[in-house]
């Protein structure tokens, strides 16, 4: 029986393991490289990965529901271009952002509806969505487009960031990331919708028999995914003040990897939103380590990123392995 007491936390083990490895990696970086321990690096870690983090929270919800969303990168790119082009055509930024968010949510809802109503595999539908959004982005504007508007220039980067010192400020995007993670955590843990998502991902047939509204939950979860992808796109425009239809290729894989590293099972039903943040930070930290190393050429960069990913995943696996049924 004492075993029974221990078990619930076993579910949290992968997340804790990830967190442990994250701290270890960070400490390692501080020891190895000068300036690695500086506040700026820490702030960059949040600010630079904000768009990924926001999109990854959405991807985590979709994975928790037993689905997958491959359209993340394309939707992020599309919303960027859409906002840039709308602002370029003289629309007010807030309207452009609102439209982009609305588009993302609608796009997700559409994919969710196809998946639910016609019982289509999410992989295919969202792959279709990815191609569609990518193509549409090029239709909106075939090249990268910068955003010249005081709202972007002044408001976002000056007014909304919190200065730490004369040269260093915490960017608005970092706050956006933390806010989304907190909201996502609350949604997953304390809302009926969140619990329905988990139930759906764990066992769709049982969830149906238990009266979970399968259809609306599914459609909503893809809507949420689309919305957060779009929000990721918005955050990216804050970050780059431009939109580029060719950008963020493969971001969906980073998002999925972040979720999985953070302890979310791809089969659905098990996972934690804060874990996804840990996953995002780990991916970001791996990149930072490689940049600080500063001599790796293209191929060694790839090999190093892959190798660190491997070391990390094996460590996580070893520390959290359980007896399986």
């Amino acid at each position: 029986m004492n075993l029974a007491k221990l078990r619930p936390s076993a579910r949290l083990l992968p997340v804790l393991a990830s967190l442990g490895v994250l701290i270890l990696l960070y400490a390692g970086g501080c020891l190895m490289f000068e300036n690695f321990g500086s506040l700026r690096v820490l702030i960059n870690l949040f600010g630079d990965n904000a768009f990924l983090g926001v999109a990854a929270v959405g991807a985590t919800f979709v994975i928790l529901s037993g689905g997958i969303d491959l359209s993340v990168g394309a939707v992020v790119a599309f919303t960027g271009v859409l906002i840039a082009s709308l602002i370029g055509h003289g629309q007010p930024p807030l309207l452009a952002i609102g439209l982009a968010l609305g588009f993302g949510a609608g796009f997700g809802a559409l994919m969710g509806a196809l998946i639910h109503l016609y019982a289509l595999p999410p992989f295919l539908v969202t792959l279709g969505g990815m191609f569609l959004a990518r193509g549409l982005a090029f239709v909106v504007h075939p090249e990268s487009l910068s955003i010249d508007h005081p709202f972007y220039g002044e408001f976002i980067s000056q007014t909304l960031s919190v200065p730490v010192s004369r040269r260093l400020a915490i960017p608005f995007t970092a706050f956006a990331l933390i806010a989304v993670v907190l909201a996502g955590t609350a949604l997953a843990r304390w809302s009926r919708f969140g619990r329905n998502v988990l139930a759906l991902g764990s066992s769709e047939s049982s969830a149906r028999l238990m009266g979970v509204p399968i259809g609306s939950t599914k459609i909503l979860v893809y809507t949420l995914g689309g919305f957060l992808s779009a929000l990721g796109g918005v955050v990216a425009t804050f970050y780059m003040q431009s939109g580029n239809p060719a950008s963020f290729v493969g971001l969906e894989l980073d998002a999925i990897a972040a979720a999985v590293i953070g302890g979310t099972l791809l089969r659905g039903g098990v996972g934690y939103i804060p874990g996804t943040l840990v996953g995002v930070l780990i991916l970001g930290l791996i990149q930072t380590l490689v940049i600080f190393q500063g001599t790796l050429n293209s191929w060694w960069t790839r090999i190093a990123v892959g190798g660190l990913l491997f070391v990390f995943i094996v460590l996580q696996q070893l520390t959290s392995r359980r007896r399986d049924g």
Partner: protein
Amino acid sequence: MSAPVLVCRGLTKRFPGVVALDGVDFCARGGEVHALMGENGAGKSTLIKALTGVHPRDAGEAEVDGRPVHPRSPREAEAAGISTVYQEVNLIPDLSVAENICLGRQRTRLGFIRWGDARTRARAALARLGLELDVDRTLSECSIAIQQLVAIARATDIDARVLILDEPTSSLDAGEVAQLFTVVRRLRDRGLAIVFVSHFLDQVYALADRITVLRNGRLVGEFPVAELPRLQLVAHMMGRSVDEVEALRHRERPAAAPGEPLLSTRGLALRHAVLPLDLELRRGEVLGLGGLLGSGRTEVARLLFGLDRADAGETRLEGRPVTFHSPADAMRAGLALTPEDRKTQAILPNLTVRENLIVALQARRGLWKQIPRAEQDRLVADFTRALGIKTSGPEQLIRNLSGGNQQKVILARWLATEPRLLILDEPTRGIDVGAQADIERLLARLRDEGLAIVFICADTAELSRNSQRIAVLRDHAKVAELTGPDVNEQAVMRAIARETAA
């Protein structure tokens, strides 16, 4: 005469190749327990599912309290006052016990779920069933019996007009059943209409007021319990005459001539699961494993079959020490195990009956020696006949078979490997009387052919009826071994109780 609460007329449901329900009328009255009886595949579960919106009906209508209901999902059925426990555990394995009980009905404050309230409610619902357990445990870590009880707790947690229980007792032991019945009676007395499905005749006669019998998707009739003798009921279910059934029931006493030892364990143990255990399994003998639920019988079976690896003790096969690192090892040595949780541990849902049946034999023969198709077909034909498996053909997907027939296919899967030692974990769960008799006879025959058999069964009567020797487990340890004349229900009960008192 109480008023009808749930009335169905002309319910019809077709699946490709089968008419699962053919114009069935059914009526459950308030303050009564109404048993729904029939062989495996008779259409009981389909009736329930067509009624509660899981399957769209092809025809027919239903009323609750005179209002027509046409639920398109279990959720709508629940809203219309029908609460259901479906056959097989249908809960969310990755969520906690408390959540499984409260899912979809959580109370919220400012939109936030009140987890404390959910836990309290879950504990209360479980307490009504006489169960006290950690409601924060993940469901998949609980034994199947506990899961079944959780499902029932969930169904009784809401205010409903009709409570439907599809084989709720199939994995419960006597004590749990008694507890459940107390609850059901209490609900009945509150005026609920209760629909109860079970293959245990004793339970039906103990609880039900009225019985509706189905056969091959058709209504045979509705009878007050008092006017329907058991024999007659079985005859209705099987579509035979009472005399024929009488002949079926006749059974010889076990021949008591066990052969030489086949497999023995000394101090076999696994931390948290099995305390040091000595067992001896002999050819031509059925060893029953008795005990309350959670007493560790399934754990013993897993250990014997190489699913878990013991951390102490030894196993000897015909005197030579062996270690099974995997089921494949155990199979090579001639062992077979039908697991207790059919849905997650046994069936390959999207494969055909044929593939499900031959897969263990194929695993034993290895990758390269594919069983020729002709042999496969012959095996399927033989076992379908021998065990009376109801399918629309060998290429039907096993997931579309009724629960009892799935169980028979799993049994056939292992018999096809011609094992020397057969471990049966609750093999008769969810199997109708006729088939149960078939299986019991088969057990006797296999035993007489020299097989060693380990028989795990929650029903002590069935256990003592079929075993030559019974090892009684309690709290993961063997507390008694009954032999000869001691192999009877009372002795098993006493063995469990004695230790409880101690």
